[in-house]
């Protein structure tokens, strides 16, 4: 079979597009987008943010008096040195209590957050239920952990149980949202397929959605434990047990050297957890990525 005859005259260069030798029309210019066609959520929100930054300069005004900022920093930091490590025994004990509060609160939160997460996943639940669940979770998240701890103290008095109650509520707000996002990210077709071959609702969720969501759910739980450990160190300020009680006490009596010791312990714990959590979550995500998630 011979190639199709070219429409160009012999003197002209050959057709520009080798894909279509039959109609060597000149390539049209690159179609350009109008300025408003280039706008998308990303650029618009970036512009809004830039405007917000400019509009927020009053926050930098300070008291308006000429204070010796640098001197203040030096003086205040000076209180902390040298840290008084004589209190390491109490600190360790309080650290243990903090960890117990965080772990317990996370455990309760998981149990409560899984049904809430299912109720809040658009792919799994009817619209009204999703609305209710998401509203509840948003409401819970609006209240800071310190306030939840205060509520806990009001219910059971100033002890670690108050911390557990407070942090449980707070974690449910986050975990519930994360879980519903995790469930929503799962391709629901697989579960539908299982339903089509006779599986019940619970079975379709358990075998069709859960295996897919499990690594994600677990990495959120690890993050939550980390987060709760940090929170648990603070909520003691309102009497809910743990390191915060110590912090509040030392602050009350201006024992900044001991305060510094507690801070160092918290720093050590959080760093350790951060590294550990990072490693575990890295392993989980690597397994997710290796299998070429669709």
């Amino acid at each position, binding site marked *: 079979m011979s190639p199709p005859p070219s429409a160009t005259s012999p003197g002209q260069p050959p057709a520009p597009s080798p894909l279509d030798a039959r109609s060597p029309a000149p390539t049209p210019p690159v179609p350009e987008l109008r300025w408003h066609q280039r706008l998308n959520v990303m650029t618009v929100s970036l512009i809004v943010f830039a405007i917000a930054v400019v509009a927020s300069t009053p926050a930098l005004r300070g008291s308006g008096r000429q204070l010796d900022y640098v001197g203040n920093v030096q003086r205040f930091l000076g209180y902390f040195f040298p840290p008084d490590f004589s209190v390491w025994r109490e600190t360790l004990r309080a650290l243990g209590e903090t960890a117990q509060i965080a772990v317990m609160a996370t455990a309760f939160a998981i149990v409560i957050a899984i049904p809430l997460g299912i109720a809040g996943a658009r792919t799994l639940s009817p619209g009204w239920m999703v609305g209710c669940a998401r509203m509840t979770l948003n409401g819970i998240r609006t209240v800071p952990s310190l306030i939840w701890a205060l509520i806990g103290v009001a219910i059971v008095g100033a002890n670690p149980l108050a911390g557990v109650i407070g942090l449980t509520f707070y974690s449910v707000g986050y975990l519930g949202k994360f879980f519903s996002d995790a469930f929503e990210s799962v391709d629901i077709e697989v579960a539908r397929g299982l339903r089509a*071959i*006779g*599986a019940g609702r*619970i079975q379709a969720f358990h*075998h069709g959605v859960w295996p*897919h969501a499990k690594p994600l759910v677990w990495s959120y739980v690890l993050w939550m434990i980390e987060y709760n450990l940090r929170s648990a160190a603070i909520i003691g300020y309102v009497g809910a047990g743990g390191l915060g009680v110590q912090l509040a006490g030392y602050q009350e009596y201006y024992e900044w050297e001991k305060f510094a010791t507690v801070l160092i312990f918290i720093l050590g714990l959080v760093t350790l957890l951060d590294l550990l959590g990072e490693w575990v979550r890295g392993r989980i995500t690597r397994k997710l990525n290796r299998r070429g998630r669709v």
Partner: protein
Amino acid sequence: MPPPPAQPARPPRAAAAQADASTLLTARGLGLRRGDRWLFRELDITVPRGAFVAVVGPSGVGKSSFLACLAGLLEPTEGTVSFHTPDGAAVPPCDYRRQTGVVFQNNLLVPNSSLLVNVCCGRLGELPWWRSFFGFPQEQRTAAYAILHDLGLGHLAHRWSCETSGGEQQRTAIARALHQAPDVYLADEPVSNLDAYLTGRVLGIFRQEASVRRRTVFCVLHNAELVERFADLVLSFDPSGSGQWHLRTNHAR
């Protein structure tokens, strides 16, 4: 447009059986519209137990949609599908799911469960949810493994399905349907990723399910030679958009 007259929808092998008790499925006036096109319309068929029905036609003609209607996954625009239980009752597809073994075109396996668990999932409909919550019964695991092994996947039983190849996943989806042991198989191009040997093997198994176990097989096939070799009935759809269809008995077999 008047549809072609319904053909006698009984393969030669079913002729001896009693007419009513042997009927598995009837479709009455079934029609499905997509936009202004009718994929099929006024489809009246009666399919007996033990028939191997090949569904043929060019791409996009509505073969998968037809199977989805039979599986109760897609609401037809008009008409009804009903399955006939052995005790004579007629039930809609959504109440017949436990007896409907679907091999989906995209397999729809659980990506991060093992092949063995994926096959075991075929029998979820038989188990109460709490029974399958902490693992499947041992005898079901044994049966599932036997099927996997039979299809040459024994050594991959504990591999996640997302870590296996397309053909292995397709065989797992087939194994899941076989493990379910349903009354009707709805297989959407079950051999599209398989080589000639496995194609013959899989269709041979379906053929046997139909002939020996009296289960009905609906199978979307593209290869005319395979249709001639395995099918009792051939249901073909017309791509014109007028919803025409044609059912013939395969005398070549």
